């Protein structure tokens, strides 16, 4: 927020100084904008790259390499946000030894903007997650867990908005049903609310009240399930009408390319997930201009 204010002030004083050269040109220059959204999911404490002789992911992943890539993208486009769709914890001894401290510290160093909560993020109990919050400079976002009667009360926001280069981005989170997946002793009095209903309410608020230009859902529901009543991302896409992008997790789904799905208003939206263990980084670029967008199906999507 502070950085944004500073940037705004700088551009105002630039306008003052360069008054002689001011013309309508400066308006049309600012008219074309680009917002980049980067994302990971299910990193599961995979801080180090996989060894060269690994049968499945030889030499892939690694947080220090992800950091370089994110840095490079931020240099190309400072209007970049970085998100994670949950299951940050559990999977390597880093978690067993340090309880998630290192994961949160490193994500903060990479300047993650927000993450949603996965089922494994409860593996050291809700207190274990709470204990690591001081190490996170990013926001934990979830709208369908009611933490009122837990230590996380008021520490997890249902949504957050970001103003980047005059474009307002609203981000909300949804999580999977914990009963049957996580021991009750770990999630305690956390209440699970229907993610579809919560998503529809939250995106409406982000669109109508918050007037967001882009609405992103961080989901730990899973990409798709067959023969089950469990909610999933593709179904979520078809039930929402303002969400532009669903960043998914939980099912460790490696997609050949991001999925284009039709939402409740028959508009094309994106559903993406980038596998697991920090093997990939998802990148979505949103381009804005001042022309009226005529296509009924929404913006054109290139995958």
């Amino acid at each position, binding site marked *: 927020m502070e950085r944004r204010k500073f940037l705004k002030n700088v551009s105002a004083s630039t*306008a*003052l100084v360069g*008054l002689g050269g*001011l013309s309508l040109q400066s*308006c049309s220059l*600012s*008219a074309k*904008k680009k917002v980049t959204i980067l994302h990971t999911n299910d990193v599961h404490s995979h*801080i*180090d*790259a996989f060894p060269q002789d690994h049968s499945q992911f030889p*030499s*892939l*992943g*690694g*947080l*220090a*390499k*992800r*950091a*370089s*890539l994110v840095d490079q993208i931020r240099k190309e486009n400072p209007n970049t946000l970085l998100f994670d769709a949950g299951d940050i914890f559990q*999977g390597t*001894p880093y978690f*067993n*030894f*340090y309880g998630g401290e290192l994961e949160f*510290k*490193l994500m903060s*160093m*990479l300047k993650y903007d927000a993450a949603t909560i996965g089922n494994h993020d409860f593996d050291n109990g809700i207190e274990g997650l709470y204990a690591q919050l001081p190490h996170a400079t990013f926001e934990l976002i979830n709208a369908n867990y009611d933490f009122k009667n837990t230590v996380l009360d008021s520490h997890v926001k249902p949504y957050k908005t970001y103003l980047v280069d*005059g474009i307002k981005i609203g981000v909300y989170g949804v999580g999977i049903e914990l009963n049957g997946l996580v*021991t009750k002793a770990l999630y305690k009095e956390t209440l699970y609310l229907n993610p579809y209903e919560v998503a529809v309410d939250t995106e409406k608020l982000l669109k109508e009240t918050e007037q967001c*230009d*882009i609405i992103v859902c961080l989901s730990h529901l899973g990409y798709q399930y067959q023969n089950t009543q469990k909610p999933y991302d593709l179904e979520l896409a078809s039930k929402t009408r303002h969400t*532009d*992008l669903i960043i998914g997790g939980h099912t460790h789904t490696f*997609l050949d*390319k*991001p999925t284009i799905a039709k939402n409740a208003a028959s508009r094309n939206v*994106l559903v*993406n997930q980038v596998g697991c263990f920090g*093997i*990939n*980084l*998802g*990148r*979505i*670029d*949103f*381009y*804005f*201009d*001042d022309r009226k*967008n005529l296509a009924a199906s929404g*913006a*054109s*999507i*290139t*995958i």
Partner: protein
Amino acid sequence: MILKIKHFVAIVTIGLLTACQSKPQSLSEIEARQLPISDSITTDATIEAFVLPYRQRIDAVLDSTLAIAAKPISKEDGYYNTTAGNLMADIVLEQANPIFKKRTGEDIDFVLLNHGGIRAVISKGPVSARTAYEVMPFENSIAVVELSGQSVLAMIDYLIASKRAHPISGIQVVLTKSGELHSLSIAGKAFDVNKHYWVATSDYLTKGGDSMVFFKDALNITTVDYLIRNALIDYFKKVDTLSPVIDDRFYKME
């Protein structure tokens, strides 16, 4: 005069900003890609340096030799019981019983774990804490379940039907040539259907994991607050050599 210029500048600036902001921004195009974190990307030196002490500490703890495996220990080397299964179940009995007895005054009668819960082979040679993490990566704790004699029989039916060598200890199951239950003894005594038994297992299984539904009829569950992995590590520290064998705890008569 100076004031006037300032005013003029302010008005023009506000005017221009308003003009800019009043132009509606609309989303015209979205481009989505997946970027692999490949070997060719530069390693960020700051991050690498930050992680190093954390990694060194883990390596120091995990890689010091605690015991020696005399031969490879696998969960696939037997049909009704295996070296890895026997080792693990025997360790749970030996390590958990003193704690359970101290807390409740009772003895654990036998142990049942699940075959799928053994996640790696123990190779011949040095055994470290890392070995324990590989064999048992999950944060599962030992739980002691009180079962009725009837529930124990349901458990035996499950074991016979599963066709997998689920790790057991403190119990002997003998099958007839045709694969039916021939004899059953627990803690060295013949099975008594009217008796209750204390069964040590993984808390994961007490919650219906691996479809072990007979645990749903538990009369009582006591958590020992002891991770299975920590029981393995403590046992590795205690002994010099691991040399489990396939034995007669579960077999079919020829």
